[in-house]
């Protein structure tokens, strides 16, 4: 249990709960549009009010992602952004920010290829707090989850509208940090979501878990963030941010301001709700 207390993710959610606030969790793909900008973008997100950062590890075959994040992966891979570079970015981020939790999000093969021992050691040394592997459900995590835990890396798992109640119970047993509720059937960046339906699902999940419930997929603006913020402990914003990065890929210095603008709008909408 000592580990839990010392983990940045748990500390952050405990603080948010005490303040009655909803977590704002931006996702960006590391190395997009080029590796040199990523750490700056991470700091910009925090300055705009992000509570947790999800940093995407580029992968050649992002099966669960829509076109927006697929293209982000392609832009990052043109520059050869590999997992080891992403870990270096986190280490660099940690030089200035020792408090904001960082979760790596991606697919299993880059970790598999690096080797689980090497990965967990280096991720811990870099200051990574959690790992969300899209194609590694709890039943395939096996020994890896224990190895991650030994190195202070929390395993974040996904829940979906199609997850049965029995299965949700199992996943909640293994989940750490927070649970990522996928708001809709589809890939990232798909159509807008239905906040009422999400609320109903989260209600069911709260009966089986104490973990914070964060919602991603389909949150595009302040209004959607606020609607989800009313029922969730955190809102995750990915494609909406990555889309803005794509629009400005030729002028990367303009990206931090663009990220701050949309995240600021969401932050404000969430906090307005929290106060009201």
């Amino acid at each position, binding site marked *: 249990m000592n580990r839990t207390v010392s983990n940045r993710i748990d500390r952050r959610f405990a603080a948010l709960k005490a303040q009655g606030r909803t977590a704002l969790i931006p996702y960006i793909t590391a190395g997009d549009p080029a590796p040199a900008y990523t750490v700056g973008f991470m700091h910009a997100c925090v300055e705009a009010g992000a509570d947790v950062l999800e940093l995407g590890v580029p992968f050649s075959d992002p*099966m669960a992602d829509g076109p927006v994040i697929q293209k982000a992966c392609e832009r990052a891979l043109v520059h*050869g952004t590999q997992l080891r570079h992403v870990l270096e970015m986190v280490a660099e981020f940690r030089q200035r920010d020792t408090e904001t939790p960082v979760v790596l999000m991606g697919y299993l093969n880059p970790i598999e290829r690096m080797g689980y021992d090497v990965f967990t050691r280096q991720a811990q040394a870099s200051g990574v707090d959690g790992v969300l592997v899209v194609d590694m459900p709890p039943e395939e995590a096996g020994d890896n989850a224990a190895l991650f835990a030994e190195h202070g890396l929390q395993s974040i798992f*996904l829940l979906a509208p199609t997850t049965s109640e029995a299965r949700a119970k199992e996943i909640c047993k293994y989940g750490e940090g927070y649970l990522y509720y996928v708001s809709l059937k589809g890939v990232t960046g798909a159509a807008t979501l239905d906040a009422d339906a999400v609320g109903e699902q989260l209600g069911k999940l709260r009966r089986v878990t104490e973990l914070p419930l964060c919602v991603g997929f389909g949150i595009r603006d302040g209004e959607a963030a606020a609607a989800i913020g009313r029922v969730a402990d955190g809102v995750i914003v990915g494609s909406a941010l990555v889309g803005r990065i794509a629009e400005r890929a030729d002028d990367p210095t303009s990206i931090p301001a663009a990220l701050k603008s949309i995240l600021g709008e969401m932050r404000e909408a969430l906090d307005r709700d929290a106060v009201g």
Partner: protein
Amino acid sequence: MSRFHDLTQLPDARGHFGPYGGRFVSETLSFALEELETIYAGLKDDPEFQAEFDRDLTHYVGRPSPLYHAERWSREIGGAQIWLKREDLNHTGAHKVNNTIGQALLAKKSGKPRVIAETGAGQHGVATATVAARLGLKCEIYMGAEDVERQKLNVYRMHLLGAKVVPVESGSRTLKDAMNEALRDWVTNVDDTFYIIGTVAGPHPYPMLVRDFSAIVGREARRQSLEQIGRLPDALVACVGGGSNAMGLFYPFVEDDEVTMYGVEAGGEGVATGRHAAPLTANAPRGVLHGNRTYLMSDEGGQVADTQSISAGLDYPGVGPEHALWKDVGRVRYVAADDDEVLAAFRELTLVEGIMPALESAHALAHAKKLAGEMSPDQHIVVNLSGRGDKDIHTVAKLDGIEF
């Protein structure tokens, strides 16, 4: 008892073949895979379901397919006797239809009105579009844009069969990208869509059920060998991309220790050049893609490698997880045939036996020729002639400088 008996007891309850296989998918699909597993478990040993499957194979596909003694070719090579399992004579022209018939029956039982599939050479796409037409199911086929170009004839066949062919422009624009896109479709339309995977890869239970539906090839070949040769063959040879036709032929022989098996991968420009699609032969590292752990061609960062092969159907960086295990335990020897050897075999069989093989199948023929030359005339090799070559005429003609 066979020292390979244990191999007949796989996969385990969670879909693992030793360290391979499994169900590495995003959470949204877990439900659909559990549902499929349940449906299949209920029907697998159901005599009525099996009878329906067998009836379709007999009257719609035209099974059993012949085991043909390629006497003239064997004589010319001057070694072992080569026998061809004529899957090219099936309805739609390849072994793929055995599996799609089976999965279409599952789709029907599941009550889903729409099927999707990925395809490389287009054979699986055509086989899927065919059964969809017959059952009145809506059908969409994902195909890499490069393969759409290479396999125009099959694209048009699918179109005539009422299927929508979606060219996939992402990544390397081949089979693996088509599978990514099919998975994205499935995750979006999981309520009303059945995904007909065309090879012994993908998340559990696909490798198992595709194997089971494809194994009719080996069951027939085993029986026919006993009848026509008077004993089991000395060797089996089949090409391996994902590995469905090889699995289909090999599986019923797994416990016949005296039968040596060869899986022939796509050597492309040569395994040594790195431009190939032969993860087993090249000892590619272990990796995870498309729902299963297997030998997977990837770079040091774990990015999946671009593959190279003259045949679209074998142009895949991974391989079915059961093949991965069979390599490790030494049940099957995996080798590669490169593009030049394949083209030579294509031309040779056409000229000597009047049978035009698919370029995929020509990989198996290329290796069988080498093997036969090292064996004696009283020995026998069964080769899976997994598909016919009509679809490849454009590719071969182009190499001859002929455009239609």
